[in-house]
């Protein structure tokens, strides 16, 4: 059963660029009147901008779709069309079922009204019936944790309370299709956790969710499918892991090596410049791509342009959601001018599958970071497993095989 079918949706905006024509007040007044009586001024140039272009995909009932894409990819435009706030220039969307969209937390809250009054107002705006709100009222209040401030105008609320109340109302909507835009970007981490939990509950009850977020972990955890938009085009739609991988690949230029011939063109500062940075996999058993078993050697070479510098090299490994898996550094040593090489080995059977980034920092006198090269290298670790029938995502930031769990039979009866 299709909940939403999107057929060839395009959305066009016309941007007009007006050139500054008048230099002073007199000119602009006379210019205004001539424009008023002449049909069109030529100095206005129009540019057609396609926010979405021929986007088509189907959403099955019960699907949890994550929508990813960099800024300006058309995510919000798509949500606006789906939630019927703006209409497409061409194409059509068929929606089956009661839909609620949450493009903002606390839409229509009136600052002068109390929390209680705003619950009813906002609920009605989001499409709840009054009796539905009444029956959920206590739950909404306790979810938001605003019991004491129920009869205070929301203009006196802290921004956190405001957001909590807004989300609490929305979370108690019971639509068949829920559209959510980046609401998790606000609120403290405690509340974000609560929101994600609530959305998981909603999704496990078989409802359809569309979710836009920059938080890849949230999308990974919540969604089963994802759509990747880029410059208004749908690049990929399918299983969430694959789509996220493509998205991550596209925003980071995947590369195992970066190399510069001369210090002039190399990245760095007056003090140090990077010459070479690379990841060298040590393939075993003739495999051709990096998987969880593959040991990796990281080589870093840089030019030191300081006479006598007390330097150490620090390496950061991030996973694809931007969390730092580990940070290791070399002992600080005094170097004279010249090329310096650093090396480290990441053992096999240590990293989990996923995408990783390496950043490198060169530190002077053990305290002063003189150059930080972000996302210098990116690489992908493929999954590999044996002796298990579990094919879901292996949890964990790392998958260290040398921390074995041992079991044995103890004496005694049950």
């Amino acid at each position, binding site marked *: 059963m299709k909940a939403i079918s999107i057929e060839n949706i395009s959305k066009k905006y016309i941007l007009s660029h007006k050139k500054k024509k008048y230099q002073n007040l007199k000119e602009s007044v006379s210019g205004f009147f001539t424009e008023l009586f002449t049909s069109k001024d030529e100095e206005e140039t129009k540019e057609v901008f396609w926010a979405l272009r021929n986007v088509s995909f189907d959403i099955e009932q019960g699907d949890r779709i994550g929508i990813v894409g960099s800024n300006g990819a058309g995510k919000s435009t798509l949500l606006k069309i789906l939630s019927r706030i703006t209409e497409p220039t061409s194409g059509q*969307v*068929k929606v089956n079922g009661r839909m609620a969209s949450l493009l903002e937390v606390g839409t229509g809250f009136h600052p002068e009204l109390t929390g209680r009054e705003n619950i009813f107002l906002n609920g*009605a705006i989001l499409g709840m019936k009054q009796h539905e709100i009444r029956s959920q009222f206590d739950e909404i209040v306790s979810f938001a944790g605003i019991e004491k401030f129920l009869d205070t105008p929301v203009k006196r609320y802290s921004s956190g309370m405001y957001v909590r109340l807004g989300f609490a109302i929305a979370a108690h909507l019971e639509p068949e299709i829920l559209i959510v835009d980046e609401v998790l970007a606000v609120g403290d981490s405690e509340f974000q956790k609560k929101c994600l939990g609530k959305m998981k509950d909603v999704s496990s009850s078989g409802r359809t969710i569309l979710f836009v977020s920059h938080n890849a972990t949230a999308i990974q955890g919540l969604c089963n499918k994802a759509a990747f938009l880029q410059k208004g085009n749908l690049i990929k739609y399918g299983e969430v892991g694959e789509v996220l991988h493509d998205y991550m690949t596209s925003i980071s230029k995947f590369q195992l090596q970066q190399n510069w011939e001369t210090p002039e063109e190399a990245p760095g500062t007056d003090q140090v410049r990077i010459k070479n940075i690379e990841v060298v996999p040590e393939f075993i058993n003739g495999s051709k791509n990096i998987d969880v078993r593959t040991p990796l050697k990281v080589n870093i070479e840089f030019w030191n342009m300081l006479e006598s510098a007390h330097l150490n090299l620090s390496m950061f490994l991030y996973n694809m959601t931007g969390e730092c898996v580990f940070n290791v550094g070399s002992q600080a040593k005094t170097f004279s001018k010249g090329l310096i090489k650093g090396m480290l080995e990441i053992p096999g059977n240590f990293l989990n599958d996923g995408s990783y980034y390496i950043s490198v920092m060169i530190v002077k006198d053990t305290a002063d970071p003189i150059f930080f090269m972000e996302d210098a290298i990116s690489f992908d670790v493929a999954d590999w497993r044996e002796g298990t029938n579990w094919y879901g995502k292996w949890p964990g930031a790392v998958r260290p095989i040398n921390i074995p769990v041992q079991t044995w039979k103890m004496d005694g009866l049950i």
Partner: protein
Amino acid sequence: MDKDNEVVIKAGKSALHYWREVWRQRELFWILGKRDVMVRYKQTVLGVAWGVIRPLMTAMVMVFAFGKIAKLEQDSSIPYMLVVIPGVIIWLFFSQSLSQISNSIVGNGNLVSKVYFPRIIIPFSSLLVGLLDAMIAFAMFFVFCIYYQFIPSWHIIFAPIFLFLAYLGAFGAGLFASVLNVKYRDIAQIIPFVVQFGYFISPVAYSSERVRNEWWYPIYNLNPVAGTIDGLRWCLLGDFAEFNWQSFIPMLIFVAISVLFSIWFFRKNENSFVDHL
């Protein structure tokens, strides 16, 4: 799931079951109206008393200017206050509804750009604030009736009809203005101007009998407020203000055409509001 639930979103086509959807969301109409009423007198010392003060002051100023200074009260067989109040009731109701409706879409831009519901509910719900004030003004009329020992005519049972017609007049004009206002904010400049001077060209503080024999009277009657004020005077004052078909018919025509046209115009444009807000 029944087929009725299927919504098709595409260019240039608002929902198929528009009016059914409006009906389904009728609670929103009340809630938005209630919001406007509740917000109105928040953080004021006098609160709802303002609902009395405004019509009272308006009526008193008009009795002073038109009755005493222009000496129109000499022709009146009943206290001039009673002639002025029906005019003030309609005028305040009309002008307030007109300003509210014409600003409704821009004023609720945060809703329009974030949630979908049939947009026409917003201007519709602007009725309630003005209606509440009209009720208060009516109560004021009865207080003056007691004071002057005047018994209103039985025609008073028709008063809601004229109030409703005044609303439709404001709705027809205001709805059209609200759509234009989204794109051209000039409207927000024009409306206060209309509200400020409109009562001079409507029989608010004088009876339309004074202008009835002028050659320009038919043009004067193109103003829908004239017809509704004449009507309300007939309702409240009975024998002292005869029913005026000359202003009633043009008003009905104006209301019918403007409401139908504005609704058509509104529906045609409502899906692109968000692109201009």
